[in-house]
């Protein structure tokens, strides 16, 4: 029984955190527990969520991608750049048919992800450093394309996905659901997903089993880039504008969602289920703090403390497992 609890600690702790937060805010605020607010929360976590799906793959491999927000921003701007803007928008853009603009934007984020993958696997730059550089490159591309201006128009399909709704459910939430489901299916039921877990669990052993570790690592980085790009397009449509530094807060939110949910920073443990819980914790926390009377500056500190607590649990659970492993013959 004890070993079951310690094995499941990674899943139990985030789940309990979520329940406690839900109960707390429901009691503390009269406006929190409502159907509309639940829909609000889901909408609020959608952009972060799509980024977090890709990031889950990366962190399961014990790597990190710091360029997710920058790639999201750049992709969102690229799709706007290839869309006809209103006359008052003073950007030398290149209007193209909507479908083509979307394809080009997807190609752009896939390409940036591919550059990351090349640097990490072929050249051998640690992912932390490589994606840090890509963070700057993404910001640079964004800056060059909009030149300090703001673009508003995006292809109508993107606009619908980001800001429209169907039968009362925002499309952006549906898209998030599709990405989470697809991510879960790939990780759990495909050969590639198994390789992701095995490479994260013991990279050396995967290599000695004849797994092409570099290919797997490269692939997860590209997946992360593409997820970020899609999130960027949705975000631009959702916010109704494309500009520089629009996604700056999303890097930390996405990493926090994955890690708070219980996916191991050391790789091999966790998954989309954990990421969903992590996203809900962050969403409930952000939304709930707006519903209670609290100093808005204190909010930032509280978020930091919750993240720290989750990290402590994450590392602690790992060390318990390690000591169990070395303790047994």
């Amino acid at each position: 029984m004890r070993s079951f609890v310690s094995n499941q600690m990674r899943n139990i702790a985030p789940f309990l955190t979520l329940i406690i937060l839900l109960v707390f805010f429901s009691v503390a605020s009269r406006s929190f527990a409502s159907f509309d607010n639940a829909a609000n929360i889901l909408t609020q976590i959608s952009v972060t969520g799509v980024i977090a799906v890709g990031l889950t793959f990366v962190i399961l491999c014990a790597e990190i991608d710091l360029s997710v927000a920058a790639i999201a921003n750049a992709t969102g701007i690229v799709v706007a750049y290839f869309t006809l803007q209103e006359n008052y928008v003073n950007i030398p853009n290149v209007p193209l048919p909507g479908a083509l603009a979307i394809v080009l934007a997807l190609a752009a984020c896939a390409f940036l992800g591919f550059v990351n993958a090349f640097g990490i696997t072929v050249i051998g730059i640690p992912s932390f450093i490589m994606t840090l550089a890509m963070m700057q490159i993404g910001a640079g591309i964004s800056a060059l394309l909009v030149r300090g201006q703001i673009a508003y128009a995006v292809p109508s399909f993107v606009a619908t996905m980001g800001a429209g709704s169907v039968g009362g459910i925002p499309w952006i939430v549906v898209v998030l659901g599709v990405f989470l489901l697809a991510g879960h299916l790939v990780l759990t039921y495909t050969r590639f997903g198994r390789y992701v877990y095995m490479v994260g669990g013991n990279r050396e052993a995967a290599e000695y089993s004849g797994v092409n570790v570099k290919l797997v690592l490269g692939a997860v980085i590209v997946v992360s880039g593409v997820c970020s790009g899609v999130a960027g397009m949705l975000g631009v449509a959702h916010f109704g504008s494309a500009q520089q530094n629009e996604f700056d807060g999303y890097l930390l939110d996405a990493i926090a969602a994955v890690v708070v949910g219980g996916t191991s920073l050391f790789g091999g443990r966790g998954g989309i289920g954990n990421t969903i819980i992590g996203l809900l914790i962050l969403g409930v926390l952000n939304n709930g703090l707006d519903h209670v009377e609290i100093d808005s500056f204190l909010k930032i500190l509280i978020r930091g403390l919750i993240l720290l607590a989750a990290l402590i649990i994450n590392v602690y659970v790992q060390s318990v497992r390690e000591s169990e492993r070395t303790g047994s013959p």
Partner: protein
Amino acid sequence: MHGISKSFGGVAALSDVDFVLRRGEIHGLVGENGAGKSTLMKIIAGLHAQYHGRMMIDGREVHFRSAREALAAGIGMVHQELSIVPDLTVAENVYLGKQPTCAGMVDWRTMFAGAREHLASLGIDVDPRARMGSLAIGLQQLIELARVLFSGARIIILDEPTSALSPPEVHRLFEVLRAVRAGGRSIVFISHFLDDVLAIADTVTIFRNGRRIVTEDAAKIDKGWVIERMIGSGHEDLEESYTGAIALDSKPRAPVILAVRGLSAGRAFADISLDVRAGEVLGVYGFMGCGQIELARALFGKLKSTAGTLTSDGKALRLRNTADARRAGVAFVPESRRSMLFYQEPVYKNMSISVLGRIARLWLKPATERDIARRHIESLSIRPPTAEALLQSLSGGNQQKVALAKWLTWPPRMLVLSEPTRGMDVGAKEDVVKIVRGLRDRGLGIVVMSTEPETVLSLADRIVVMKKGRIVREFAGETVSKDRLLEVA
């Protein structure tokens, strides 16, 4: 030292050993792996604090609890794996941990001058400003030795100092050691290279099975005499012994699966040429550090070779990574279980990982995976007999079977085993021998790399001996014995 005994978990590593080291003496220490020589030296160097018996230095009884205490008493050790800092300069390495300071700042001028002088006094001519990592391995070792001397050691223990050195480097090391001896300090020289030991030592002590067999003046003995006493009559211990001659059942006409020509990889090994034949076990024997571990990795695409070719079926084989090797039909079991198993995953995932591509293209087929696992669990009698058990809950021997089972679902054409029986009890060793022979009889080409002559002799149909990164001898279709192997290695 008097009546030293030491045991690890009930297994006696040393029993009632007496050992005398004189001032100004180079004392050679020889014996097979596990004979107890390293254990004794670790006691002297303070790395094992728990032991029975008494140890005296200059007539005073001592009992070290840590390496620090031993060092304070003038005992220093140079391990086979050097503990230098490659990114620092030579001078910084010599002065490591006690740089001369001037008003709280490192006094570089004094340090460089002091290091130069100290090294010159040992006959080592090297720029103290050079980066340590840029020097040849032989020089790095001399500088580590210089550091141990500089720290005031009067007794210096050298563990396998010549295993990575070329003949001129060995020569230079001996010059330095003679200078150290002339200074009245004592040296313990542990080595598998009997020629080296006999060339430099004044006295030689032979260990076997945790006992000191004999101590003799080096001038009076030769290599054959030493080997005879290292191996013993062979009937003293329970373990299967291969002191007698083994007739190698080589198959010179069997088809060649993999032809290796002139393979080299940096410092690890050079100009290796050998053929792996179907239905034959090729044993590669050599001492620790002779390059066979690296050679095994190169055959599996884990280590990039710098020169030479691999040919299979008349076609050149380029191994860019381990996936290439797997596709070419090469399998590898490394010497450490830890580096090939997934401890947090169930048994069936551990077994299926290397054949996943054959079972499933895109979507996994867990039912098939479990079926395959159950088949291996039954045929290898793995305990507990469930495919779902987490690997970490299995015992070491069962984990080893899982490691082997990975490659048995669709047998590869060629299997490379590194130290397949290290640390196993007799029963488990026999299981391994049985499995390997079974695979050979099914037509696999098998390569067994080991530093234990027994392992190679019990498995191989043909043996090559490696020494310092090169093949020095091949035994095929003849009789060979352990002392022959030891003699050429």
